[in-house]
C-alpha cells in the first residue's frame, strides 16, 4: 500500500477496487484484460485517502487525487448562483450566471427562469416584466441542467 500524500501521475494503480472506492481524480478499470478491478489515478497530484463515515454501509475508504490546477466553478443542480438578467420575455427570462456559491465562473453559463419558477405562490399570475428587468442581479437556485442551451434557475424560495 502506498503512503499518504504521495504524488501520482495518470494511469498509476492506487489499489484494488475491492478495498478502495474511487473519489475525485480516480477511476475504476480492469487491469490488462484481466477481470481484476483496480482503482487508477486520472490526474497528476497528491493522493489522499478519506475514511468512510461510520454509519455508511460501504466501509471501504475513498481514495482521491487532488490536482494543482484550479478549474473554474461549474453550476450543478442544487447550487445557489448569482446571475445577471439579460433578457426578459413573456414567459421566461434569461440570465448570465456570474458566481456559483462564493466562486466566480470563468466561462459563460446561461440560465433561464421560467414563469412558474419565479415565486412560490400565485405562480400563474406572475408577470415577467414586473418581476425582472435586464441588468438585475439575482440570487437563484439551479433546478436542473435544463435543455442544451441553458440551466433552469428558480427564484421561488421564501427567504
Amino acid at each position, binding site marked *: 500500500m502506498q503512503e499518504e500524500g504521495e504524488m501520482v501521475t*495518470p*494511469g498509476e494503480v492506487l489499489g484494488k477496487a475491492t478495498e478502495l472506492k474511487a473519489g475525485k481524480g480516480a*477511476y475504476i478499470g480492469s*487491469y490488462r484484460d484481466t477481470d481484476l478491478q483496480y482503482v487508477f489515478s*486520472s*490526474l*497528476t497530484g497528491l493522493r489522499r485517502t478519506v475514511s468512510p463515515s461510520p454509519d455508511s454501509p460501504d466501509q471501504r475508504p475513498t481514495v482521491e487525487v487532488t490536482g*494543482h490546477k484550479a478549474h473554474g466553478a461549474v453550476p450543478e443542480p442544487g447550487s445557489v448562483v448569482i446571475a445577471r438578467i439579460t433578457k426578459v420575455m413573456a414567459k421566461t427570462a434569461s440570465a448570465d450566471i456570474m458566481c456559483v456559491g462564493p466562486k466566480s465562473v470563468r466561462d459563460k453559463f446561461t440560465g433561464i427562469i421560467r414563469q412558474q419558477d419565479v415565486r412560490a405562490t400565485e405562480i400563474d399570475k406572475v408577470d415577467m416584466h414586473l418581476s425582472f428587468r435586464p441588468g438585475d442581479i439575482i440570487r437563484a437556485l439551479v433546478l436542473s441542467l435544463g435543455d*442544451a442551451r441553458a440551466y433552469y434557475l428558480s427564484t421561488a424560495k421564501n427567504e
Partner: protein
Amino acid sequence: MEFVNPEGLRLDGRRPLEMRQLRAQIGAVAKADGSAVFEMGNTKVIAAVYGPREVQNRSQQINDQALVRCEYSMANFSTGDRRRKPKGDRRSTEISLVIRQTMEACILTHLMPRSQIDIYVQVLQADGGTRSACINAATLALADAGIPMRDLVTSCSAGFLNSTPLLDLNYVEDSAGGPDVTVGILPKLDKVTLLQMDAKLPIDTFENVMQLAVEGCKAIANYIREVLLENTKQLEYRRGL
C-alpha cells in the same frame, strides 16, 4: 546508402537502440489551460490545451461526453527548405485526426459531457518523428491542464534499415524509404492505441520492430512521469507546502 556503419553507429552517432535526447518543459503558453514543449533531438513541438469549456459550435455538442478537437500546424521555418504551405493540407489534416483519436482514447470524456477540449500542436522544428513528438507534447499539456485521463499516452517510432531495427528515426532515416512504425501506447495499462506503418516488412521482423517502438514509448513514459512529478513538486514548493 549506409545507415548503420560497421562499428554499429548511425548517421547521427547513435546506436541502433538508442533514442534521441528528450527534453520537456511544462507551461510555455501563459493563457492556455495547459501547455508543454516537447523535444526529441532536433524535433521540437509545442502543445496547448484549452478547456474543458463550453462547446463553440452547438451542432457538434455531444450530450454524454466531451468533444475533443485537435489542430496540427507546422511553422514555415520548421523544415530544412522553407515552404509556405496552405493551412489544412492533407498531411496536417491526417495528423490532426491521428492525434485527436489517440488523445480521445485516453481522456475520460464521459466525465465532461457537453463540453469541448481543444488541443493545438505547433511544430517549431521538424526532424522526423513529429507525429510521436506531438502526441507526447499533447499528453503533457493535457496532464498540465488537469484533464482526467485513463493513462498517459506516449508515442515513439522505429524503423528497419540495413537489416537492423532502429529506434526513433530522424528525418534522414525516415525519408530513406524503409518501413516506419509509429506506435502509441497506454504504458500502465499496457495497451496499444496507435499503430501506423508504411512500406513492407516480414511479419516476424515487424514484431521485433514494434516491440522496440513499445520499449521506446515506455522509456518516454518514464521520462514524462518524472517531468510531471518534478513540476508538481515545484508548484507545491512555490505554494509553500
